[in-house]
């Protein structure tokens, strides 16, 4: 399978007459873009705001991030979400690099939403402070979940995907300057040289622990709660087949942008044919009941065995209960002789003294650790807030609180904040960017 991604670097984004791209400058006709957003009548209010690296801006509640893309054959960029279910990962896609579309609640936040500071001390906690962000700040008429801590955030998330596709389309006819080719030969058709290298699978456990549909990560538009582990081509993951959900504490979350740019897949590609034989992705999931966890681990083990994998990298989107899925899968792979390295974050508490994962196993002897969800973070006020700052304290975000006996509310009168890392937008970057690790103090 061969995927060609035409990369168009974006250095700045401005509003103007015509939505266009010229030498690193993306211009957006705001009115036209908002029409795309408002194709869904459930969007009641919407605006676009630009947030650039280094600006004194705080964005909250952020629900999703997407890299603007367009499939040149005209198929849906996000199959099952912005259009029909058609396969991706093959052919040509164009991408606006260095920028993202952020889905931001105009008022209302939910458990899985996060915060981004574009400058200052807070900027280091999230990858998205480094990008030029088009913030879609919107409200909806989804009254059924207005007061709920868990929100599907359907209208605004889907609107952000449409907007990302609309922006991506801007460069569909432009001459390519930089192209990334992602190609893996079929597993049984590889040269002896490649076959002789240690074969590696990448096992992904995207978040799917809500039994009710509408909150979980989607695979080609299909709720990952309703699937069993399956083999996928890494290009599908990079090309919009997986859509992020609206459920997990935010620092553990994998946004759609993260899937589209998954650094671990990119690195496995870079090693393919040199040090390893990259077999592909086993797309697993995360479950609630023990038998579901065991069944998924069993399927992952079976697929890895059937493929003859020598080694695996295993990553979980979450912490706490999903640690059981992570460890079960780790143990199952090791039992099958598949040498495994796990990637996860930890929950050691504000004092660092809690058990790092809810379950441990001596077979999980190689782990890359990406951060502590419960680290307490204090940040000064920012000049501008995009969205609504009060949401951090009021709406049950995983790392915010309305009041605390010792710490007071998360949001102070002067606009400064105190929060847990839990609500840093996609902060722990378990898909591979994380520059953080965990150490003993």
């Amino acid at each position, binding site marked *: 399978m061969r995927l060609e991604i035409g990369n168009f670097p974006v250095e700045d984004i401005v509003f103007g007459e015509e939505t266009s791209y010229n030498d690193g400058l993306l211009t957006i006709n705001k009115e036209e873009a908002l029409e795309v957003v408002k194709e869904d009548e459930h969007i009641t209010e919407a605006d676009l705001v630009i947030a650039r690296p280094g600006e004194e801006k705080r964005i909250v509640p952020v629900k999703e991030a997407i890299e603007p893309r367009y499939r040149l054959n005209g198929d849906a960029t996000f199959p099952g979400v912005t259009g029909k279910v058609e396969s991706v990962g093959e052919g040509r896609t164009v991408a606006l690099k260095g920028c993202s579309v952020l889905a931001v609640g105009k008022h209302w936040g939910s458990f899985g939403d996060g915060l981004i500071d574009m400058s200052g001390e807070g900027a280091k906690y999230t990858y998205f402070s480094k990008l030029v962000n088009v913030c879609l700040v919107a409200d909806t008429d989804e009254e059924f979940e207005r007061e709920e801590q868990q929100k599907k955030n359907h209208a605004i998330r889907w609107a952000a995907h449409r907007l990302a596709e609309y922006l991506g389309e801007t460069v569909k006819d432009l001459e390519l300057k930089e192209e990334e080719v992602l190609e893996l030969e079929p597993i049984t058709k590889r040269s002896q040289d490649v076959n002789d290298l240690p074969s590696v699978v990448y096992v992904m456990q995207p978040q799917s622990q809500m039994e009710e549909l509408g909150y979980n990560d989607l695979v080609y538009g299909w709720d990952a709660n309703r699937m069993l582990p399956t083999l996928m081509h890494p290009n599908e993951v990079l090309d919009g087949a997986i859509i992020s959900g609206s459920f997990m504490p935010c620092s553990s979350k994998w946004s759609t942008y993260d899937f589209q740019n998954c650094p671990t897949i990119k690195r496995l590609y870079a090693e393919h044919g040199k040090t390893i034989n990259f077999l592909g992705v086993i797309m697993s999931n995360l479950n609630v009941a023990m038998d579901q966890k065991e069944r998924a681990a069993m399927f992952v083990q079976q697929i890895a065995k059937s493929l003859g994998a020598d080694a695996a990298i295993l990553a979980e989107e979450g912490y706490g209960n999903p640690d059981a899925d992570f460890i079960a899968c780790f143990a199952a792979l090791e039992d099958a002789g598949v040498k495994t390295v796990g990637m*996860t974050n930890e929950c050691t508490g504000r004092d660092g*003294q809690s058990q*790092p994962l809810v379950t441990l196993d001596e077979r999980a002897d*190689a782990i890359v650790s990406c951060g502590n969800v419960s680290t307490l973070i204090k940040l000064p006020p920012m000049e501008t807030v995009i969205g609504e700052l009060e949401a951090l304290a009021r709406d049950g975000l995983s790392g915010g609180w309305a009041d605390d006996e010792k710490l007071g509310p998360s949001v102070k009168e002067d606009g400064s904040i105190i929060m847990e890392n839990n609500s840093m937008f996609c902060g722990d970057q378990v898909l*591979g*960017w994380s520059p953080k*690790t965990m150490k*003993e103090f």
Partner: protein
Amino acid sequence: MKKAIIYINQFFAGIGGEEEADHQPEIREGLVGPAMLLNQLSDAEVTDTIICGDNFMGSNEEEAVEKILGFLEDKEFDIFFAGPAFQAGRYGNACGVIGKAVKEAFDVPVISSMNEENPGVDMFKKDIYIFPGGKSAAKMKDDMAKMAELGNKILNGEGPLTAEEEGFFTRGIRHQVWLEDSKPAADRAIEMLLKKVNGEEFKSELPIPKIDRVPIAEPIKDLSEATIALATSGGIVPVDNPDKIQSASATRWGRYSVEGLDNLPNREAGEFKTIHAGYDPAAADANPDRVVPLDALRAYEEEGRIGKVHEYFYTTVGTGTTEAEAARMGQEMVEYMKDEGVDAVILTST
């Protein structure tokens, strides 16, 4: 200039060895014994030396701690040192006990050093900084240098003070840090994977503690012939706690006769109570059988479902008790049980 105070035992104070181990706690202004070395190495001025006999601390812990905290009440100090204690078990315990108490009472950093074989390491490494030290006083200079160096870093606000870089025993306190080279997780994972695949040594970023598993015993073939003992980590003891079992982080245990008793008379009756500090004692004090179910076992004995109830029940306190101490106490209990023909044990927790 910042100020430091150090705790040492009677031996290092030059008072005497075993014969002086009951020496009462005292505080002396200025430098005694190893305090002089610390004063040379530390950026802080060592103002006072606290001295206590190892036995005194071991047998009169509460009194010793109270006295020493009293000495410190009107002192100004920014940091506290204890030891080094080398392989001396009682000295290690004393350094840990007093270090923990000082940290809790005055919220200052506390630094000690002990040999890895010293039981004080496992008991207190979570509470205070403990460096792996030498076996004997021949290593005094090296061990004190490590203690002083960490102290200097803390006093000068340097950091982050990770166990890996500084060398103290890990304390089970894990925090996130940004790697100096910012190496992304994906690169770290691939490097680890290649090492693992190639059989090279690799270092997990989340080391999993080794679990000391005990195989499950064979079932008793005929319970009606078996002698069953009761054991608990729930802290049930005679009301005067004759063996002075600690209420938390226990190192001592006891066994008490149940001969002739149908159940355990309670605290009000002046017989049994719990000294466990980790749960609400009301129910256990009102009826100790809720923790040590002698009444139920007697009923089984009466019905002939078990042969007989063993003459003693065995008890200690589980809260805060280290695995190493728990294993030692368990092994000691088992010796008695084996000698006296116990076939099985019911172990109750809380």
